[in-house]
């Protein structure tokens, strides 16, 4: 496990000493990471920003309890992940399970950013992939996001999502395969990968 680097320690000391500007620096340095986790886990665009704020409020309130045993970013991502799980539970939004996924059924993105009509208008592969990612089980898309966007290791993702490394690897493997198969099934190889 990676220990907390000295610059993060110095920043935390300044925040605990009452320096609000230091906390602003912390937010600016980690808001991208938090938005990656929150935007991937929560489809409702209106709630996303509130949840991101809630994550940083929790970070601020609990900073004294950070034990410097992991990177600050790992700790913040864990708070973001848990906050999203609490949100999904409160909204009674089920965490889709791979076993229950029907490959033929259209993806349910009622609250998502990519409405079906927009999808068909757009011929851009990036939009299609984003649309399909929203249809993956929450754990799959979170693991893929932390790996590909935040360049986290399996160990860090395992720490954030409280799952064994092998489970994380399996989620990522199945998530990518599912994405590829679903994209090909919907759009065909020729049209899709040009």
């Amino acid at each position, binding site marked *: 496990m990676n220990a907390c680097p000295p610059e993060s320690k110095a920043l935390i000391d300044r925040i605990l000493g009452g320096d609000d500007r230091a906390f*602003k620096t912390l937010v600016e340095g980690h808001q991208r990471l938090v*938005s990656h986790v929150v935007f991937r886990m929560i489809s409702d665009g209106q709630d996303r920003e509130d949840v*991101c704020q809630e994550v940083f409020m929790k970070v601020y309130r*609990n900073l004294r309890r950070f034990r410097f045993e992991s990177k600050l970013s790992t700790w913040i991502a864990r708070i973001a992940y*848990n906050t999203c799980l609490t949100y999904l539970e409160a909204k009674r939004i089920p965490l889709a399970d791979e076993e229950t996924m029907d490959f033929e059924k259209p993806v349910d993105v009622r609250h998502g950013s990519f409405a079906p009509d927009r999808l068909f208008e757009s011929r851009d*592969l990036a939009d299609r992939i984003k649309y399909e990612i929203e249809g993956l089980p929450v754990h799959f898309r979170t693991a893929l996001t932390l790996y590909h*966007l935040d360049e986290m290791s399996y160990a860090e993702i395992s720490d954030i999502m409280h799952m064994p490394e092998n489970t994380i690897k399996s989620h990522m493997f199945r998530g990518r395969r599912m*994405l590829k198969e679903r994209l090909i099934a919907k759009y065909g190889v020729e049209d899709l990968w040009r």
Partner: protein
Amino acid sequence: MAIEHLTDEQFQEYLDGNLADESRSVVETHLEVCEHCRDNLRQYQLLYERLGDDSGFSLPADFAAGVVSRIESESAENASSRVWSVIPGFAFIAAIIGTLVYFFGIPSHSHVDSSLTVFFDKIAAVTITPIKGFLTALNIDPQLLVASVLILLSISILDLALKHAKRRPSSMCL
């Protein structure tokens, strides 16, 4: 004899850079001779590129300032609620002192400075005596009234203590 193509797991492990030298060499040798697997690898490569696409995750430009401002207003609210939370404690102590003074009066000791005794007498004349007169006029049992006030104050202190304990964040929420 049918060609044995690379598996999805091999493609992904190859692109993730997780294959040992020998396994990587097996994959690369196969790719040289198999167009089907080269197409498959290209599909995975494009998927990987798109999974690393960072667009669509932006928060408002003033997001960090908004968080800091929320923290500041929450801190101000907490400071104000801390002030209010000590008021029942002071009221409780004042009620006990008032009760003692009401029932036993202000002791006059020879060693107490006479100006202090005069001061307490004046305070009693302004506070205790009118209250006594008011309660007598209303025919209310002062003991019952004092007991009720003490009970209400105790309940309010207990309520504040419980609220404070609830607000304390739990490590499970992190």
